[in-house]
């Protein structure tokens, strides 16, 4: 199977979060993932998009969120970039620590890591790029037989 690539440039709004999630759900379904895996992929993308819109771009209408889906025979790779100041990973708390359990935020990256096979987070002063990778197993022609 050849690689398929789809890219979107989106505004820093809540609509972007929903659009990214819907696109992820559709593309993961087309890639042949089962319902549960589709839900996990879509939710990981949603959480990454929330981080990009809220924490990265801080709803700045002058900043964009770039979402890129790449499907290969082995992987579904989703890259989400914002134009914010760059995520400080040292300040991301462990949401499972007893002192953080009752905090009302800080679970997004944890959920992303829980739902995807590989996660790369690359912050810089011009924005944060997060790459989400889900392995495709048992892919047949056109990805119809892919399963998890």
């Amino acid at each position, binding site marked *: 199977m050849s690689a398929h690539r789809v890219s979107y440039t989106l505004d820093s709004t*809540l609509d972007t*979060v929903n659009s990214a999630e819907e696109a992820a759900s559709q593309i993961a379904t087309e890639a042949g993932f089962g319902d549960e895996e589709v*839900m996990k992929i879509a*939710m990981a993308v*949603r*959480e990454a998009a*929330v981080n990009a819109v*809220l924490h990265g771009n801080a709803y700045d209408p002058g900043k964009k969120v770039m979402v890129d889906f790449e499907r290969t025979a082995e992987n579904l790779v989703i890259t989400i970039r914002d134009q914010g100041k760059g995520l400080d990973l040292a300040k991301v708390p462990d*949401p*499972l620590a007893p002192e953080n*359990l*009752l*905090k*009302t*935020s800080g*679970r*997004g990256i*944890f*959920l992303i890591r*829980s739902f995807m096979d590989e996660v790369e987070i690359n912050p810089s002063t011009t924005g944060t790029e997060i790459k989400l990778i889900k392995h495709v197993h048992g892919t047949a022609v056109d990805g119809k037989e892919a399963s998890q």
Partner: protein
Amino acid sequence: MSMKTSNRQVDGVTIVDCSGRITLGEGSVTLRDTVRDLLGKGNKKILLNLGDVNYIDSSGIGELVSAYTTVKNQGGELKLLNLTKKVHDLLQITKLYTVFDVKDDEASAVKSFGK
């Protein structure tokens, strides 16, 4: 689909039947407003029926935590009823399943509230 709630009273307990998605934005705000409204009216025994909640994101989880602590801080109790598998799994992996009082039978859940 956004979130909808409707309230009913059973033996002094307010059961909030929730349906849809508890996510960043409308769904989280609906839950927050509902709990705030109930507390404002003096209803401090709250059972959130999540049986028709098919999706919740990290913001929704945060809103559940906020509702729980807000009610508790005002001397009340907030419990969860009828979790779907998705919500159950999310609370498990975030270690919140043991924080919340989770019930799967409405009648016994109502009885479990303090008098």
